[in-house]
């Protein structure tokens, strides 16, 4: 019996040693070679010191759980859920702090609970000031997270979103933005945490920090971290779009609030510049080849050039290649393909499409049909062409994802004095309505419409999103004021038609194509300086240039009979309350629109 127990003990010891050996082998310090764990730790920056601040509170709390950190944090999560459900919000937030101390390097905790505070708890409160305080708590939570996780720019990225989106896009954005502007303690807190929220870059037009700009600063901190080698699970094209976008949202926000002068233009000017820089940036990671968004035209030209060279070189080899492929198609399917499309049945239609795809030769196959001598060169071009096409496709797709062209045009448009004026007039008109000055409002509106017309003509793309929507809203107010329906003599009639189809999202309405028609027309208008400064511009419209009218979509029916236009009059905009620093002679002339009912 003694022998048996001795044997058992020896077995245990051997097993323990057996388990320890690989651990010892893997866990040796890297200097001794084969310290796999050490190596992995430093490769993925998992060492405590790499992760971020080493905080005695957090460490002692983890120690105090005696290795039962998992259980402790699970209990705290359950508590937190309970507190949230039963609306013990003070304690909810206190519990979150404890959770964070237990799991300070668990990024999702910071993200998830910050969201909880800013987005879920805050709306529970009735007073917007309290709501603001809770949004701040979420932000505060993320800021704390950043100090524990110096290598996780995702937190800074989230902060950019919270400060921008949550404060600047909520229903109570006016109140939030106002509270934020005057929240000196909060600004100071950011400064303490290493973000210069009181620097020039953060200042809005009233020389107080603006939430969009502070958010933008957080994005830039994230970019710096990424540049220094920290990883972030975001596509480059989205990641880098936010900083300039926030600049634009900032512009939009101050304009909404009535800052409609040189200061707004300045903001947009900067936005345009930054958007351009973003467009020139090499975006890696998402696609195999780095993409530059602004190289679209070059890429397109390149494809064209290569394709024509290829066609030139291969001649009718393409036809040959297609014929070869046609041989391999079964009779029945081929028959379907050859049938005129009106006569095909559903199945046949599908088969025909299939065949069409199958018989499409690749560039390589076309090159293969050539005589040896030409083949090598053709294959080379084929390869280049394939790459160029891929690049073009990728660029186009990334541009679409960030809506690159729209914002490009928008920034350009917003820098035009005409657009600023149009906005200001509309803003003033809206204010006059509140003051019950109907006549004044109508006049201002009508001034605005003419300017909007110019802007839309020159920059058709901005009709699509918020700007168009705002104008449309004002048009509806205007309609109520004049108490009449608008007809085709209304200067923004075509815009209205466009917008109606756009909003209703008609199946047969192709935004792209319609816009490109408008754009074609816009291209003929010369440089913006020329266009917006020439008195003629005011009278320009589709109405007297019948050859380039945008006639796409059922609802877009531009007027073929231009109404008589009054000659443009040049009058300085003296009625505009001028916070404006621009000399009045740079102003576009005022124009009376006879089409508009008065």
């Amino acid at each position: 019996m003694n022998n048996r127990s001795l044997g058992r003990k020896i077995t245990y010891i051997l097993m323990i040693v057996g388990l320890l050996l690989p651990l010892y082998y893997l866990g040796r310090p890297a200097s001794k070679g084969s310290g796999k764990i050490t190596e992995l730790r430093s490769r993925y920056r998992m060492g405590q010191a790499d992760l971020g601040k080493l905080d005695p509170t957090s460490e002692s709390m983890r120690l105090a759980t005696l290795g039962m950190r998992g259980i402790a944090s699970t209990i705290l999560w359950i508590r937190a859920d309970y507190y949230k459900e039963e609306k013990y919000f003070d304690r909810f937030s206190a519990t979150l702090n404890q959770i964070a101390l237990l799991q300070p390097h668990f990024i999702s905790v910071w993200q998830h609970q910050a969201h909880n505070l800013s987005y879920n708890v805050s709306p529970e409160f009735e007073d917007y000031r309290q709501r603001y305080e809770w949004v701040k708590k979420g932000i505060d939570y993320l800021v704390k997270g950043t100090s524990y996780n110096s290598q996780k720019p995702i937190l800074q990225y989230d902060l950019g979103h919270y400060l921008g989106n949550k404060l600047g896009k909520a229903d109570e954005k006016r109140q939030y933005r106002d509270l934020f502007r005057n929240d000196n303690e909060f600004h100071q807190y950011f400064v303490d945490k290493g973000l210069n929220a009181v620097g020039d870059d953060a200042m809005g037009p009233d020389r107080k920090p603006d939430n969009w700009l502070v958010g933008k600063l957080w994005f830039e901190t994230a970019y710096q971290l990424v540049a220094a080698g920290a990883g972030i699970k975001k596509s480059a094209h989205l990641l880098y779009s936010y900083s300039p976008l926030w600049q634009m949202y900032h512009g939009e926000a101050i304009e909404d609030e009535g800052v409609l002068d040189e200061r707004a233009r300045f903001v947009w000017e900067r936005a345009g510049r930054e958007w351009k820089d973003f467009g020139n940036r090499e975006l890696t990671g998402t696609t195999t080849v780095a993409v530059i968004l602004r190289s679209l035209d070059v890429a397109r030209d390149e494809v064209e050039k290569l394709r024509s060279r290829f066609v030139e070189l291969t001649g009718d080899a393409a036809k040959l290649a297609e014929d070869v492929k046609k041989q391999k198609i079964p009779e029945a399917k081929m028959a379907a393909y050859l049938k005129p499309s009106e006569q095909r049945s559903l199945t046949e239609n599908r088969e025909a499409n299939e065949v069409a795809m199958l018989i499409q030769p690749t560039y390589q196959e076309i090159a293969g049909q050539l005589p040896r001598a030409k083949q090598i060169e053709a294959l080379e071009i084929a390869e280049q062409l394939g790459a160029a096409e891929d690049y073009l496709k990728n660029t186009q797709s990334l541009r679409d994802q960030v809506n690159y062209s729209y914002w490009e045009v928008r920034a350009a448009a917003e820098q035009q004095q005409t657009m600023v004026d149009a906005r200001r007039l509309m803003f003033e008109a809206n204010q006059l309505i509140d003051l019950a000055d109907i006549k004044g409002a109508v006049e201002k509106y009508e001034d605005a419409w003419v300017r909007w017309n110019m802007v839309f003509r020159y920059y058709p793309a901005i009709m699509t999103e918020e700007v168009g929507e705002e104008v449309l809203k004002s048009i509806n107010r205007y309609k109520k004021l004049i108490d009449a329906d608008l007809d085709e003599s209304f200067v923004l009639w075509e815009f209205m038609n466009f917008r109606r189809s756009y909003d209703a999202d008609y199946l047969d309405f192709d935004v792209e194509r319609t816009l490109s028609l408008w754009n074609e027309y816009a291209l003929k208008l010369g440089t913006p300086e020329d266009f917006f400064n020439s008195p003629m511009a005011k009278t320009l419209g589709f109405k007297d240039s019948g050859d380039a009218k945008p006639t796409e979509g059922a609802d877009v029916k531009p007027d073929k009979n231009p109404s008589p236009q009054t000659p443009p009059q040049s009058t300085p905009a003296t009625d505009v309350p001028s916070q404006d620093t621009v000399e009045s002679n740079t102003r576009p002339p005022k124009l009376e629109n006879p089409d508009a009912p008065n």
Partner: protein
Amino acid sequence: MRLYPEQFWTYSEWLFDHNGLRDGLLLALVLTALGFVIGLIVAVVKHGPGEGFLNVAKLIGQLFTVDIPRISFRRIFAIARLAIKESIRKKVLVVVGVFIVGMMFAGWYLDESADYPARLYISFVLTMTNYMVIVLGLFVSCFSIPADIKNRTIYTIVTKPVRPLELFLGRVTGFMAIGTLVLVSMGLLSYVFVVRGLYHEHEVVSTDPDGLKGETSYNNRHKHTFTLNDTGTGQTDEIKGHSHLIEKVGDKIVIQGPIDDLTARVPVYAKNLRFTGRDGEDNAGYNVGYMSEYQKYIEGDTLSSAIWKFEGVSPSLFDQAIKYDLTISAFRTYKGDIVTPVGGLIYFRSTDGTVETDRIPFKVKEFLTDRRVLPLQLKGFKDGEPADLDFFKDIAPDGSFEVVVRCQDRGQYLGMAAADIYLRPNDLYFYWNFIKGYISIWLQMFIVVCFGVMFSCFLSGPVAIIATLSAIVLGFFGFFVDEVYKNTSGGGGPVEALIRIPMQSGSAIELDLGNPALETSIRTIDRGLLYSIQLLKSAVPNFDQLGTADFVAYGVNLFGGLLGRHMTIALGYFLLTCIVSYFFLKTREMAA
């Protein structure tokens, strides 16, 4: 704070009207029968039917004939003194040191930006004390008897005329004495900590030209505004649950320390709350879709209303005016006017509805206490005619009246629970409420010690710890067991959860192993396991409910009735553990 009507029953209401006594006795009866049957089975298995039954009968007989009558307090105290000495020798007083260290670093865990720092501070110290003394009770109680058995010092004890009950009572007394000592020191430290932690001062930073209105400096993450009256005194506005008294001394304005953050309101709650629906029909109030069923909602701009019925309110409590607090919340179905809170109407009426006050409009102060005052002489309606009223003469001649709340804004909702309106005749001293909070903690420690000593009577130290700990965990997280049992928390029982972990399957989706039979059997096993855990749970004290930290933290006087109930429950567990220990000590071979 969540206050349920059953929490403000008086002791006698609980004992008699709500069957506390009956249920307790019933439980005792069931447990006795159960214990008897189990004991009998064990004895019969061990000694055969005849002798087994005889043994059990003898055991029970001895309990009443010798072991209870011959209990000697001198022996109990001797054992208690020994337990105290032993505990001190084991340096349990170190926990006080740990507590001090914990408080020194408390600032790290406390959220300074909280809306009510007092609540956080108080619940922090109470919770920390609570956990610490429970752990203390756990460790001192579980190791003592097993250690005696291991050192065989028990030989010299049980060969003296010491009765099993004395062994149990002595230990419990001793440990409770030492626990009380620790608890009292913690209580004193906590009190100082809370009072000092909340104390702060402000300076005046700006006043308006006539010097009567102004703003204080920004300290402790807030600032106040204030207005002085003609005599040069005043009070700041209430921020973060407190305000300051202000006095003009000469040219200087002096701001004193915070007041009102440490209170013990003595609320008078309504006997019941009922609701009416959109068309004035009775209903249970609307649910606006929250998981929590605590508050019910009424719809705005309809006949929907909430009606509280107060009974037996004594006029002597309110000699000048009726002070009452509102803690009503709002639910918006649309954003509406962002700047203005949702509004409501409140009025008081006689129980027969013939006399009512004017409608008093109010705006919801979500999650804040809206302190209001109703004058005793007021305007209203008598039989539909406008009239001047005296509150206690016309509306509540016998102290009974109703309070009606409606929501004014169309499409918005107001939410309320029975405790969301209460009369506030006067405040008690905070320190007394604080002491009552500590009595609650003491009771919890008492139960833990009883359980610990009981388990240590028949288990070895570590196993006793685990058993007691399981009881505590079950007691604290019984609600979670309920949730899992009722399957409202998702993710299934223990076995299913164990399978889900390596599968990384979220709790929201059904378990899918691709084998229905296997899944069914797993669920069946889980049902069985959960059922037994549920059974066990109902036998252990519900610590979650015994906790009264909220009362102290939220400044609500801890009702004597509630404390009495908790004491009764603790006494029940004491008796239970007493008897179980007796039988185990009596039937245990000490030298085995």
